Structures are given as structure tokens and as C-alpha cells.
């Protein structure tokens, strides 16, 4: 167990680092063709771009408990979960670049990544992925498998009708379902206190007679523990849980967000508590990894991500008339 723990924490670190480095490259790629004049539709990566820098713990520390048979649904801000779930990074990157080799042959884009081989999906409509995970959990149960389904949402989505309907269903049918709420304090420009009538959404578990957890201060280790409990319970027929984690959004809601609604101090303060640095320090302090091991791991991460970008950048665009394909099977 101790050993497991070590492997798991290293895996969490690897995932967080992969996500972070992936997104740092994405931030740059996104700006190509958008300077000096920003135009959302220009450059190799057009459209909206929602990055999750700072929010990595929720995804990494939950999904380390899952296998490829477990389902994850995510949101408009899906990279960290997708990476944690083991989505094919090359195809994912290619998709974001709008290439034929992408997960969706260039039809989906950054908010619409689907990799059925690892049971990952996401989408651009707030709250809409929750019932999809409930449905996967239902299918798992009907098939007699011990697979679980986890939906990730932002704290803003916790005020959507889909949240309530889905949790009631999951609780009523006692499904292997977990809802992870990433509370990054903001729904675009709307602060949590202006959107949510309770301090945290774990409280809302009571409305469904299920278990609720609150993970404070973006702590990957605590998230890891709490997630284990929730996943184990779900796998063993103990039903659903809600886990809310206080997390940090280092960047704007989307790239190009002027962020006039938040205090200039907020981001530097959050960055000072970077969960990746904190986990690294924890690994070192607890002797779970040596500096050399960490560095080897990081180099590997850079290599994998760089490969994915190479692949994406050098892939072909689809032919225009491929737009007409794939409406129906």
C-alpha cells in the first residue's frame, strides 16, 4: 500500500506535469497567427481555448484510481482530465489543430474530444456531461461490471438543472457514479458567491442522501485519498458521491479573457501555491522520489508532449468535403 501510494503519487505528478506542459505549449500555439492583433478565428488553433493550468490535481488524483474501463466525462475545459484518462495524446493534439488525424478527424475541436478506447468524452455545454456519466454508470451496473463513471464539472455547473436531475438518478438507482466539482472560484466572470447559495457543493450531497467530500486548497494528496474512498465505495456497490475540490484557475476563463473582473493579486497568490510544485516538494520530502527521478520523469513528459505536437503539426487537414461525412454511421 505504501508502495502503491508512491507509484500513484508519482503517476499523479506525471499526469499533472504532462497536462501543464501540454497546456503551456498550447498557450503558445494558440497565440500563433493571433499577434499583433488577436483574432479568435486566426492561427493554427482557432476558436475558444479553455486551459486548466492550476487545476490539475482534481483530474490527476481522481483518475489515478481508474482504469480504462471506467468512464470519464468532462467539460469545455477538458485537457487535464483527458490526459489523466490516457486519451491518445497525438490524436488529441491533432484534433485541437483541426487535423484529419485527430480524435474526431478535425470535426470536434478542443471542447469535443472523444476517445471511446479509454471511455473519455467532453463537451461545450455546461452541465451536459453529468447525465452521460450517469448513463455509463447505469450501463456498467446492468452489465454486472464493477466499472465506475466519473463526471467532472466546474462549480458554476453545479447550479444547472442537469446537476440535480443526474444526482437524483444516480442516488436513486445507487449507481457507481462520482461527481467531481472543480471549484476554481469563477464561472467566467461570476464569482462563486454570486452563483451558488451554499459555501460548497459537498453540502448538496445531502439532497440526494449520498456522501459529500470537500478537498481544500487544491491539495493533490488529499484529493487522492478522498477519491480513493469514493471510487472504492462506488465499485463495491455503495453508490455515488460528490467531491468538491477548491482549485485554482491561473489563466483567464478562455485565452483572450481580459480578466477585468478579478483582483490583480489573485493569480500571483494562487501561482505561489502551485500544486505541481507542492506535490514535487512532497515527493522529495517524503523520499518518494529523488531529484534525479523527478527530472527523468519530467524529461519523458516533455518528450511525449513534444511528440504529440510534432504529430499534430505535421498531420494533414481534412479535405473540405469530408465535412459531409460522419453525420450518420
Amino acid at each position: 500500500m505504501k508502495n502503491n501510494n508512491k507509484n500513484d503519487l508519482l503517476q499523479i505528478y506525471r499526469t499533472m506535469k504532462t497536462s501543464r506542459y501540454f497546456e503551456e505549449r498550447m498557450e503558445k500555439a494558440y497565440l500563433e497567427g493571433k499577434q499583433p492583433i488577436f483574432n479568435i478565428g486566426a492561427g493554427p488553433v482557432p476558436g475558444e481555448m479553455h486551459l486548466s493550468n492550476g487545476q490539475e490535481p482534481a483530474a490527476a488524483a481522481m483518475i489515478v484510481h481508474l482504469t480504462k474501463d471506467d468512464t470519464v466525462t468532462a467539460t469545455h475545459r477538458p485537457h487535464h482530465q483527458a490526459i489523466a484518462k490516457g486519451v491518445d495524446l497525438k490524436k488529441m493534439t491533432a484534433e485541437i489543430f483541426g487535423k484529419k488525424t485527430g480524435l474526431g478527424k478535425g470535426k470536434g475541436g478542443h471542447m469535443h474530444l472523444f476517445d471511446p478506447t479509454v471511455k473519455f468524452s467532453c463537451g461545450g455545454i455546461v452541465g451536459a456531461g453529468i447525465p452521460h456519466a450517469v448513463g455509463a454508470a447505469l450501463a456498467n451496473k446492468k452489465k454486472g461490471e464493477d466499472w465506475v463513471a466519473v463526471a467532472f464539472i466546474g462549480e458554476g455547473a453545479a447550479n444547472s438543472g442537469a446537476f440535480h436531475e443526474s444526482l437524483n438518478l444516480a442516488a436513486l438507482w445507487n449507481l457507481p457514479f462520482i461527481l467531481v466539482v472543480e471549484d476554481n472560484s469563477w464561472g467566467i466572470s461570476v464569482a462563486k458567491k454570486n452563483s451558488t447559495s451554499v459555501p460548497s457543493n459537498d453540502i448538496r450531497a445531502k439532497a440526494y442522501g449520498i456522501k459529500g467530500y470537500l478537498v481544500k486548497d487544491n491539495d493533490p494528496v488529499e484529493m487522492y485519498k478522498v477519491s480513493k474512498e469514493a471510487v472504492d465505495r462506488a465499485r463495491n456497490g455503495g453508490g455515488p458521491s460528490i467531491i468538491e475540490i477548491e482549485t485554482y484557475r491561473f489563466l483567464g476563463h478562455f485565452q483572450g479573457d481580459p480578466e477585468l473582473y478579478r483582483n490583480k493579486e489573485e493569480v500571483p497568490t494562487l501561482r505561489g501555491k502551485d500544486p505541481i510544485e507542492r506535490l514535487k516538494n512532497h515527493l522529495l520530502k517524503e523520499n518518494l522520489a529523488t531529484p534525479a527521478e523527478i527530472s527523468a520523469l519530467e524529461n519523458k513528459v516533455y518528450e511525449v508532449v513534444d511528440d504529440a505536437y510534432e504529430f499534430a503539426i505535421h498531420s494533414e487537414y481534412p479535405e473540405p468535403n469530408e465535412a459531409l461525412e460522419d453525420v450518420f454511421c
Partner: protein
Amino acid sequence: METIKAKKDKIRKLTGSKAMVQALEQELVRDKNIIVMGEDVGKYGGIFGSTTGLYDKFGPERIMDTPISETGFIGAAIGAAAAGLRPVVELMFVDFHGVVMDQIYNHMAKIHYMSGGNVKLPIVLLTGVGGGYSDAAQHSQTLYASFGHLPGMKVVAPTFPEDIKGMLIAAIRDDNPVVFMFHKTLQGLGWMDQLQASLGPVPEDAYTIPLNKAKVVREGKDVTIVGVQMMTIEALNAAGKLAERGIDAEVIDLRSIKPIDKETLLKSVAKTNRLVVVDEDYLSYGITAEISAIMASEGFHHLKSPIVRLAIPDVPIPYSRVLEKYVIPDAQDIINAVENMITV
């Protein structure tokens, strides 16, 4: 009826709802991955009889009553389909689609496309449509075009029991999302208008009918009347009366709202040169619009007089019987339109 071998099959008269139930039952037996979900589909058997008796035969694991959470359970059907089940899910009245339309058109209809064809969603969305029994503005709509407008779903609305069974089986076996609209009055329920057309011969064995074909239900040469569900029935009634007056109308039952079977329509109008479209949905941006447009672009030279559109004028459906009767087209409206069109 393409796949029926008449010799071997027993054929019995069934109502629309019994044809649905028979289709569902045969498919539930055939494929263990099919589940049925919806409000009151269990012991009640579906408010419009679409699942009568299935709960007793297949139990609560396969025939699942749900809370009044359409976004929840129709959204769950999407997730369950992606995970390998084949859900048949009922939206009790099409009028309620607005509480769940996001799941239907942003997810159910688009995920296959957005995933580049990698995710399949074999879902059948059953839903009851239609008015004519004073159920007022929020329970009487057909909303054919609200679904037909949006890409990624097949949308069918069969009229006769034989088509209901065959198209429902085809819908269940289809790997794409199919919206299957059944008309309440054509279900042949004991507590609604008793229509002759709601009882018809249905082969006992399972068979499929294509989801994309209109059907000429009466041949004629003077004018083409296109309807769907109750409007097909009204068109047939009108055609009968018109025949007495020497006008020979061809009647086409549209059956498929999306895609529309242009070929059958164009062929008919090439012969008759006149077109009347009748719709129980709202006029603007409805079936009368789409079919007129197909004709005005692709069948323009067939037409020898203006197309006639009959539909619910753009008003909500009123409650009081006299008002409702005024807004829903009927055989007499069709007769008037055709007589106006043709100077015999």
C-alpha cells in the same frame, strides 16, 4: 413492407400502440442490450400504450420508470448508448422537448459527428405527438419541423400500424439516433377517437421498413397531396370525396420527416403537376415550407400552379374545441384547396 414473406407470416389486425409493443417485445427478446426508459413506461405501460405489458414480461431492469427528469434520463440514455446499451427512451409528449432539447440536439445528434464517427449512439427516442382532443397549447403539438431542422437525427412519423411496427424495428436496429414520433390518435387507444386507420394488418414476425421512404398511399393523376400521420388520414378522406367530384388525387404519406424522400415526391408531382402539402405542425418553417422548397428548386418545371400549404396558422394550439378545430387542417380544407386549384 419490403422484408415480409407473406406466405409464411401470420398477419393480424393490430392498433398502432399494439404494433409498437409488438415491435419492442420482439426486439427486447432478440437483443439483451435494449432497455426501455421513461416516465410511466413500467406498470402503467406508457401513457399512450407504447409499452403495455412489457414490464410484466421483462421486469424493472429492462423496463425502467424514471423520475420527471428528462435531461437526466435522456442524457443518461446517451451515456448508456456510448457504453454499449441500446436505449429506447420515451419523452411522453413531444411538447416537453424544451426541457431536454440540449441533450437531444447538442449531444445525441452531434456526438457521432464530433467524434469523427468513433462514437455510435443507437438510441430511439419515442415521443407522442398531435392534437385534436382539446389538450391545449402545451400538450397538442407535433413539432415535426423542430426536430427535422436539426442535423444528426433521423426523424420518422409513421401513420399506419404496419409501418409503425416495421419502422420501429428498423429504428431500434439502426446504429444512429432515431426520433420516433407516434401520433396519439393513431395509437388506437380505447379512450380516444376511434379511427379505422388506427387498426390495420400487421405481420406477426419481425420485419423492417426503411426509415427514409415516403409511401404513395393512393394513386392519382390530378394533384399530389402530401401529408403525415393524421394529415395523411385527412388527405385520404379528402381524396375519396374528390374522386366523387371527378378529381383523382394522389396521396403520399411522408413517413420520414428527416430525411425527406424527395424522389417519391418529385416523381408524383412530375405526373400530377400540382401539389398540396398538409401539416399538423405550425405553418412557418414547417413541412409545408420544406416540401414546397424542394419542389420550387428541384421540381420547378413540374409545377403548373402555385403550391398550396395547409398547416396550423402560426398560433399556439387553443383549448376550446371550436378553436382547435379551426386551426388544425382537415379533409374539408383540403377539398376546398384542391377545388380552388383545379377548375374542373
